[in-house]
Each structure stands twice: as structure tokens, then as C-alpha cells.
């Protein structure tokens, strides 16, 4: 018995690895007990289940995505702070090389797949149906499935830290390093299965929003009258459905290599590890456009609203989005210029990469022209948008430098690259996501986030960003490679690394200010009683905040771009007021507990596969099929909201 316990704690709980694991165990245990106790004490279990876990309402799903994304930002951010602390001076002993490998792997994976992705899905869900005048997405049940697949995949990925060991082959997980021969632990399996499971959810979300946008727009809302965030969502969704299958294939083949001993990527038996790199980036590069385009959409909304002007060059905005969709699939080779594929291949991908800077540049100029002579209000969303412009411009410029294939041989995989992609992913994606969060927060929760604390967060995060990443360009040119866990003192890198780490701490403080701001605003934030706190332009601002669960009591008829703004300008907002005789019963999708259970089942399946405990995996996958079958025979999945109830809600909102 003792021997078994000893073996278990050593192999699975990794208690021999020291205080960092112990601390995590204790913290996780305390947090879990705290959550369970609070739910029981306040008798919130039933509320949690009926209102949240079983919901198919896009607004609530969006909120859950947002909460998960912020939690994952905390986890990924903590990873980043640990990495930077290890590099604060040469020869630091905070992390061992193994721990450093694990932490940069989880940092990258979590930030891209479990922070940025759910964050964009949060914004899709919160904004798109309201912007196009729909009552939910096209497939609400599938939407819930996407959420829970993502959520349980994220859980699966995160428990690796305290159970069995984290993945440690980098977020790209290149073979042969990620093959069994070099990486025999379970960490890589966690990576492969968690990404596979969340990938299913992502593809489903892509399909869901394409159909929603194409098929469910309010009468009169032609494609060219759609808000630009909706266009950006459509573009990102198109990229998702064509890019993610490549990742699925790459990960599945690697999983087969590791699980049943095939040789797709092991050279010794005729496989080719470089094929993984090729497949990974067929997904990987479009992926960065998946996460940046929604931010572009946010900026378009925010700039028009806070400059009080129509967006400059709407048509060119749409065209450049679509061009980016196409070209984004023809640039993946720039991630492996140094692989030795030949001059022609490199020339093609270098050219395509420079080409994609053109539509992106068009968009940046359009935002600037929209601001030009506008009446700019520097509210929080606009502040982040304005900060985005120079940050992203510098990031784009260094990107074009990296795209010069011969020069790339000099700084490939150096800190120059690290600085570049953090500059576009933070300065582009994260700034946009935070701007979007501030912008739609009142629509989600009915109150604004506190401006003063938000400004503290903004300045700490922005100044911290520049202090953190500008030195890294220099470090890269001075020869510092990425993924080094320590460095000798005589390289001349000491000061710049110290400065960079200070910047990372400032960004951490900035994030804590956002947390503080949310906590403070829940109690003291300015309540949004009009539903239109920013003097908005698009349909979502014609609704109360938060919107009733059926969104529109009567679907409005749209006559122009910026529909709500036009109605306000023409003093015709009364026409969209609900009239008693126009209300009809509304058919809505029923809540269901199955999507949640579906996620649990996939978690069990993934967990079994990670450890090659195939019985557990089999149980999981059988439940998955059982749920699919059960759903297939469900004929009654909708319910009717009677007119009286709608009237009651609308009267309660003071709209009738």
C-alpha cells in the first residue's frame, strides 16, 4: 500500500519536484473548496445549473467565454512572469531547465488557444446576434457544445501542471522533440488531446457564426449594411473552418505516432518531421489572423463610435478583410525560411507576406482617416484603440523585416522574433480584445467599468509593454535566442533583460488593475439605464442593457448602415419602440444539460487517452456517442414565449 502511494505521488502528483507543485496543489485545493463551499452556502447550485451550465443563450455563453478567457489570461500571465523572473539576471535559480521548458510551452499554448480564442468567441457571442438583429445564433445547442468542449479542453490542459506533468516541447510541439523518443512523459499527450478537443469546438463555432451571419440578419440588413465587427467575425470564421482541419490532421498524426507507434514524423522509419512543421503552420499562420481580425472589427466599431463619424472607407474595409482571408492562407512558409526548402519557396512566401501588409495598411489608414476631424472622446475603448495604432504599426514593420527571407536567417528564433510577435499579438489582438470588453461590458452586465481604475490599468499595461518588449528587439539582434532558460553574465544582455523583466511586472500590475476595476465596478460602476451608454451606432445599442433573453421583442427593419445612429439622427427611434399589437409569441431553443455532459465526456476520453488508460477513454467516448444519439432523437427542443410574458418583460424594462 505504502509503495503504491509513494509511486502514485511521485509519478502522477510529482511531489518530489518541490515547493512550486506543493503550492499549486494547496492553492487549487483551497480554491476548489472555496467555490464549492460558497455555492453550497449561498444555495446557488440549482441557479448555476439552470441559468448557466445548461443555457444555450448566446449572451450567457459569451459571458462564460469571457470569464474563462480572463482566468486563462491570469494563468498564462503568471507563466510569463515566472519566465521573465528567471531571466531577470544571468544564472538565476528560480526555475530548472525542465520547468522553464514546461512553462514557456504552457504560456504560449494557453495564451493562443485558451485565452485569445475564447476571448474572440466571447465577443462574437456577445455582439454579433445583437448587431444583426437576431434572437440567437443559428445553432444555439451547438454553440453550447463549443463552449463546453473549449472549457473542458482548457481544464484538461491545465491539470497537466499538477497531475502527470506539463507539455514541454514548445507551443508548436515540433517532432522529433515531441516524439516518444525524446519526450516520453504524458505532457505532450495532454497538449495533443486538449488542442484536439478545443479544435472541434472552434470549428463548430466557425460554422455557427458563418451561418448566423449569412442567414439570420434582420430584414433590410444587406451584407454591405452589416457592422464591421460582424464582417470581421465572418472573416475570422471563414479562416477557422479552413485552417483548423490542418491542425487536426497534424495533431492526430503525431498522436498516432506517440500512441500506437506509427512513423509519420520519425525519420528513422521513413517519416518526415518537417511535414508536421508544414501542416502546423498551414493552420498556425491563419490562426494569427483568426485572433487579429475580430480585434480589427472592434477597432472599427470603437473608432466610429468615439469619433462620432461614419467609418472611413467602409467598402475598402470589407474588401481588405476578404483579401486578408485569402492571402492569410498563402504565407505559412515564412515560419520556416531556415528549414532549407529552397530559394523559390522562400521567395514566394516572403512576397506573399509582404503582400498581406497592404490590406492591413489600408485598414490602419481608414481608422486614422475616421479619427481625422472627428469629435474624439477618450473613453477606455478608444484609449486602447489609439494605443493599438503605433504599437501595431511597429509590430507590422518588424514583421516585414522578418519577412525578408535572407535577413530572417540572421534573426530567426531570436528575441527579435519574440518581440515582434508579442508586439502584434498584444498590441493588436489583446488591445483589441480589452477595448472590445470595455465597449460591450455595459451591454453584457448593465454597468460600465470604472474609468479611473481603467486608466491606471491602461498606463501600467502600455508603458510596461514597451519597457518589456523594446529591449527584446535589441537582445535578439545581440544574439539572444528564444527558449533559453538562462544565460552567461558576459554576453552584455544583463541590463536589457533586467529592464524587460521590470516591464513584464508593470504589465502584471496593469492586469491586476483590470481585476480590481471589475471587482470595484460590480458594486460602484456607473449603471447603464439607457442601453446606449456610448451613443452607439449599431443595433445592439437600441436594446436595453443587458438585453432580454429573446433580444428583440420585435425584429427591427434596417434601412441603412449604422442603422441605430441613422434612426437617432432622424429622430425616428420611436419607430423601433415595441408596440403592443406587434408582439407575437417567440420560439426559442430550450436549455439542455447535454452540452455540458458532452464536455465532461470528452474530458474523460482525453484524460484516458493521455495516460493510455483505454478503459476510461472508452467510457468517455461511449458517453459522447450516447449523447449524440440521444440528441438525434430529440424532436421537441424549442419552447414558446407567450405574448404576455414578453409584454411583462418589456414593461419591466420600461419599454412598453
Amino acid at each position: 500500500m505504502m509503495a503504491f502511494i509513494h509511486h502514485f505521488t511521485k509519478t502522477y502528483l510529482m511531489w518530489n519536484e518541490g515547493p512550486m507543485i506543493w503550492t499549486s496543489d494547496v492553492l487549487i485545493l483551497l480554491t476548489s473548496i472555496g467555490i464549492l463551499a460558497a455555492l453550497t452556502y449561498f444555495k446557488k447550485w440549482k441557479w448555476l445549473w439552470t441559468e448557466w451550465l445548461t443555457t444555450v443563450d448566446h449572451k450567457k455563453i459569451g459571458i462564460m467565454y469571457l470569464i474563462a478567457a480572463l482566468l486563462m489570461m491570469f494563468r498564462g500571465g503568471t507563466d510569463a512572469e515566472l519566465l521573465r523572473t528567471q531571466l531577470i539576471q544571468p544564472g538565476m535559480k528560480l526555475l530548472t531547465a525542465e520547468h522553464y521548458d514546461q512553462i514557456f510551452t504552457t504560456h504560449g499554448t494557453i495564451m493562443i488557444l485558451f485565452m485569445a480564442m475564447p476571448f474572440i468567441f466571447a465577443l462574437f457571442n456577445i455582439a454579433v446576434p445583437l448587431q444583426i438583429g437576431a434572437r440567437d445564433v443559428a445553432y444555439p445547442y451547438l454553440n453550447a457544445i463549443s463552449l463546453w468542449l473549449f472549457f473542458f479542453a482548457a481544464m484538461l490542459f491545465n491539470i497537466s501542471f499538477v497531475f502527470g506533468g506539463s507539455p514541454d516541447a514548445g507551443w508548436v510541439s515540433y517532432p522529433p522533440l515531441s516524439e516518444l523518443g525524446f519526450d516520453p512523459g504524458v505532457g505532450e499527450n495532454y497538449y495533443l488531446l486538449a488542442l484536439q478537443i478545443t479544435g472541434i469546438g472552434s470549428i463548430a463555432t466557425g460554422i455557427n457564426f458563418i451561418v448566423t451571419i449569412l442567414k439570420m440578419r434582420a430584414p433590410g440588413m444587406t451584407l454591405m449594411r452589416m457592422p464591421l465587427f460582424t464582417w470581421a467575425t465572418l472573416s475570422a470564421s471563414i479562416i477557422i473552418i479552413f485552417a483548423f482541419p490542418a491542425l487536426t490532421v497534424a495533431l492526430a498524426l503525431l498522436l498516432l505516432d506517440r500512441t500506437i507507434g506509427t512513423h509519420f514524423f520519425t525519420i528513422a522509419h521513413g517519416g518526415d518531421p518537417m511535414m508536421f512543421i508544414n501542416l502546423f503552420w498551414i493552420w498556425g499562420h491563419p490562426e494569427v489572423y483568426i485572433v487579429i481580425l475580430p480585434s480589427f472589427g472592434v477597432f472599427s466599431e470603437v473608432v466610429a463610435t468615439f469619433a462620432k463619424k461614419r467609418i472611413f472607407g467602409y467598402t475598402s474595409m470589407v474588401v481588405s478583410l476578404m483579401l486578408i482571408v485569402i492571402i492569410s492562407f498563402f504565407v505559412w512558409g515564412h515560419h520556416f525560411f531556415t528549414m532549407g526548402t529552397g530559394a523559390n519557396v522562400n521567395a514566394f512566401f516572403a512576397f506573399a507576406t509582404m503582400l498581406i501588409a497592404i490590406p492591413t495598411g489600408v485598414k490602419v489608414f481608414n481608422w486614422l482617416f475616421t479619427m481625422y476631424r472627428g469629435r474624439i472622446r477618450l473613453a477606455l475603448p478608444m484609449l486602447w484603440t489609439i494605443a493599438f495604432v503605433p504599437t501595431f504599426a511597429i509590430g507590422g514593420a518588424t514583421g516585414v523585416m522578418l519577412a525578408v527571407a535572407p535577413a530572417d536567417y540572421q534573426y530567426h528564433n531570436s528575441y527579435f522574433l519574440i518581440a515582434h510577435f508579442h508586439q502584434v499579438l498584444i498590441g493588436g489582438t489583446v488591445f483589441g480584445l480589452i477595448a472590445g470588453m470595455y465597449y460591450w461590458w455595459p451591454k453584457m452586465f448593465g454597468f460600465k467599468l470604472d474609468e479611473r481604475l481603467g486608466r491606471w490599468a491602461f498606463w501600467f499595461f502600455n508603458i510596461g509593454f514597451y519597457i518589456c518588449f523594446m529591449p527584446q528587439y535589441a537582445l535578439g539582434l545581440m544574439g539572444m535566442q528564444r527558449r533559453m532558460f538562462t544565460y552567461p553574465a558576459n554576453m552584455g544582455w544583463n541590463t536589457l533583460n533586467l529592464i524587460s523583466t521590470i516591464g513584464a511586472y508593470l504589465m502584471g500590475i496593469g492586469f491586476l488593475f483590470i481585476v480590481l476595476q471589475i471587482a470595484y465596478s460590480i458594486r460602484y460602476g456607473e449603471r447603464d439605464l439607457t442601453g446606449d451608454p456610448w451613443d452607439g451606432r449599431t443595433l445592439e445599442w437600441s436594446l436595453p442593457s443587458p438585453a432580454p433573453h429573446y433580444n428583440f421583442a420585435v425584429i427591427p427593419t434596417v434601412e441603412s448602415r449604422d442603422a441605430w445612429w441613422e434612426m437617432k439622427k432622424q429622430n425616428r427611434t420611436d419607430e423601433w419602440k415595441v408596440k403592443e399589437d406587434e408582439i407575437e409569441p417567440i420560439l426559442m431553443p430550450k436549455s439542455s444539460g447535454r452540452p455540458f455532459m458532452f464536455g465532461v465526456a470528452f474530458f474523460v476520453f482525453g484524460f484516458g487517452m493521455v495516460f493510455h488508460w483505454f478503459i476510461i477513454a472508452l467510457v468517455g467516448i461511449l458517453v459522447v456517442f450516447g449523447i449524440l444519439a440521444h440528441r438525434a432523437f430529440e424532436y421537441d427542443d424549442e419552447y414558446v414565449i407567450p405574448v404576455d410574458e414578453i409584454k411583462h418583460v418589456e414593461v419591466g424594462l420600461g419599454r412598453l
Partner: protein
Amino acid sequence: MTTQTNHTGEAVHVKHSAKQYIIGYILSLVLTAIAFVLALGHAMSFKPLIIILMILAAFQILVQLFFFMHINESDGPPYHAIGLGLALLFAFAFALMSIWIMSFGYHAQLVS
């Protein structure tokens, strides 16, 4: 889908008889069987075999598109045709360019 179509009043779904699905199913089975027999029995030399298999695969795609995905039916603009066009573009681009990349300039060296 069904939830919303009732409100906007579009998307009238055509009811399909089982016949179409059964024909499609049999056709796809037959196409698979032909390919399987040809490959397993080494019925011809490598090059023509590959060509025949490619043609069979193309037919298979057509069966899927017409009998199961109802590519020829739509209400409203033909978005699905645009989607299909994009899919073909990307699929061929990925496949051909991957071959190009993974041959590591072999052909270029051969020519020079």
C-alpha cells in the same frame, strides 16, 4: 436553424424521400468497392491505376455533394457555392504547395 427560420420566414426546407439517400449510399459503396478491387488486385500498372483512382475519388465527391449535401438546392444567394470554391482553392493550394515545399527544391536542382 429551425428556431429562427420561423421568425424571418425564409428557408423553406424541401422534404427528401429516402430514395435519394439510398441511391447515394449505394453509389458511394459501389465507387469504393471498384477502387478497392482495382487496388487490391493490382489490376493495372501504377500510373493508370492512380489516374483511375483519382477519377473515382472525384465521382465520390460529386455523389457526396449532390446526394447528401444537396449542393443544387438553396434559398437565397448561393453562399455554399462560394464556400465550395474557396474550399477547392485552399485544398489544392495546401496539397500542391506542400508537395512543392516538402520536395526541398529537388525539381529545381534536377532542372539545373
